[in-house]
């Protein structure tokens, strides 16, 4: 086995038995990125600095970890793949970057993403699209498409993404890797450049379920710099691995298996259900009656929060500034030249739904239906431990296919958005391949702060099916 193929777990073991393996691993990985990333374009800022001072003994000692480019890194340009943040070199580390470094990890590179995480295909990046390692004509999903493509193509050992409406899980599904959106509040967002503050969560994108648990152990926990981070004890997530699923109650929402779901995806997911049943889990039908409204609610709530969060980009303190004769024109021109088309679309939509005269009809209405969606989950979780369904309605689509139709792009997040609206943890794991040899993902959702249940179910499924053993040919 080549070093770059190692899982995080295997890399950890290898370095533990021989500390010089860490430097060797980073060197091998660097060579691979240099050789292949001109075709995949997973990285926007790839500069493995050999001088990073890392904790010699930690749970991630010597292991390179890649980050989505909306996570701030001290001394490294952080742009959110937007022209408006070009040249922004943060003078501090995000809390999770500090935690990674304290655990001994190296920040290996910054990964491409949809501009400000606005997108489901990685095509709205100011650097251009990332390509899916399974077929370079296809999108890797988004918005954490660079992170997912890097992990899938063995250009990273593991990576972090952020998820506001599916931005970790949908690209994990499209690239055939494991993506976890933790419970809202489980991981500190201090130093994550904000998109939708009531929805955003940071989480791991990894080769295996076990790697995801190892990383969440490092990331999770309260942070006094983020008042929305929950002060709830963090269990050892690896303790949930390797357990059986006998007696686990799995719910299948009847609203998931409807028109719009690709037959190949449905088949793969139904086969996964069979695997769980064979392993001793019991499967029942549940109902999430307001699920069909999730995308509509999201495109009110998320854009409202985004328009407010993006108010700070005005060319005064950091990033790009357009030259102008007076201050007002500087604001207008900086924002008009600095933001791409999708960012403008969402800023305008968010400004509209929050504006006087429309607030009650749109924003308040959206928040009320959000309550109904959350109640659907509360009720379903009285009956079951885990909800199972597809991560995305289709396998990956082609680059360019949906760029002119924003609504059809938004609908590719139809299965993932409701977990953010309800704040519950959800994970995408590989569950097969389409006839075109493109990955298909399965989504597991659990009660708030029960990531452990996700790890238990996902690791049992993964141990039986071993989809992670199949690799793209690059």
């Amino acid at each position, binding site marked *: 086995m080549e070093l770059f193929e190692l899982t995080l777990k295997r890399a950890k073991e290898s370095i533990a038995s021989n500390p010089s393996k860490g430097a060797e691993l980073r060197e091998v990985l660097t060579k691979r990125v240099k050789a292949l990333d001109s075709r995949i374009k997973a990285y926007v800022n790839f500069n493995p600095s050999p001088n990073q001072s890392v904790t010699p003994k930690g749970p991630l000692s010597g292991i390179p970890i890649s980050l989505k480019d909306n996570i701030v890194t001290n001394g490294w340009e952080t742009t959110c793949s937007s022209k408006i943040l070009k*040249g*922004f*070199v943060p*003078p501090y580390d995000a809390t999770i970057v500090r935690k990674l470094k304290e655990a001994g990890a190296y920040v290996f590179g910054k990964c491409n993403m949809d501009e400000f995480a606005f997108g489901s295909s990685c095509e709205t990046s100011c650097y251009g699209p990332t390509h899916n390692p399974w077929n370079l004509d296809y999108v890797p999903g988004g918005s954490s498409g660079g992170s997912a493509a890097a992990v899938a193509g063995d250009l990273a050992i593991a990576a972090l993404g952020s998820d506001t409406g599916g931005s970790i899980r949908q690209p994990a599904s499209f690239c055939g890797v494991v993506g976890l959106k933790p419970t*809202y*509040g489980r991981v500190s967002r201090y130093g994550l450049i904000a998109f939708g503050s*009531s929805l955003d969560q940071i989480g791991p994108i990894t080769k295996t379920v076990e790697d995801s648990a190892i990383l969440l152990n490092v990331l999770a926990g309260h942070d006094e710099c983020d*008042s*929305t981070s*929950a002060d709830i004890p963090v269990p050892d997530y690896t303790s949930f691995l390797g357990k059986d699923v006998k007696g686990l109650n799995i719910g299948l929402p009847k609203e998931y298996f409807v028109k719009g779901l690709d037959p190949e995806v449905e088949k793969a997911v139904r086969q996964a259900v069979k695997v769980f049943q064979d392993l001793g889990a019991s499967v029942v039908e549940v109902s999430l009656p*307001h699920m*069909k*409204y999730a*995308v*509509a609610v999201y*495109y*009110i709530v998320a854009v409202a929060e985004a*328009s407010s969060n993006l108010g700070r980009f*005005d*060319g*005064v*303190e*950091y*990033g790009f*500034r357009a030259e*102008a*004769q*007076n*201050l007002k*024109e*500087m*604001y*207008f021109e900086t*924002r*008009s030249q600095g*933001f791409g*088309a999708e960012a*403008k*679309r969402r*800023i*305008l939509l968010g*400004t*509209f739904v929050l*504006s006087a005269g429309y607030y009650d*009809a*749109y924003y*308040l*209405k*959206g*928040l*009320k*239906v959000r*309550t*109904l969606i*959350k109640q659907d989950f509360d009720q379903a979780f009285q009956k079951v431990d885990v909800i199972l369904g597809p991560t995305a309605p289709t396998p990956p689509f082609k680059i360019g296919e949906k760029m002119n139709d*924003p*609504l059809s792009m938004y609908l590719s997040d139809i299965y993932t958005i409701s977990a953010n*609206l309800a*704040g519950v943890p959800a994970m995408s794991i590989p569950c097969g391949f389409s006839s075109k040899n493109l990955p298909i993902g399965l989504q597991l959702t659990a009660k*708030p702060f029960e990531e452990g249940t996700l790890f238990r179910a996902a690791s049992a499924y993964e141990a039986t099916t071993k989809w992670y053993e199949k690799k793209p040919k690059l």
Partner: protein
Amino acid sequence: MSEKINIDPIAELARLNLKPAEREKLAKDLQSILAYVDQLKELNTDSVPPTSHVLPIENVFRKDKAKKTSIREAMLDHAPKRESNFFKVPKIIEGA
């Protein structure tokens, strides 16, 4: 039916100058997204409380302690323009 959007005052509020072609395309996109969002009107939500935040979060208090920091130079250094210890911007008051 969804509201007919007048995009110009919204762009003004959002501090965006839209080029003519861009303006037309964005107005059309917004209209079709709002038409989709209109399906929420099917639901009677008169007695439903809004959820702006999913966690039962209360005010978080802690001691206000001063800490030493050396971040000022770093912050000013990556400003597009600075003068001494200030961010420099174009003129604000016309004719001054």
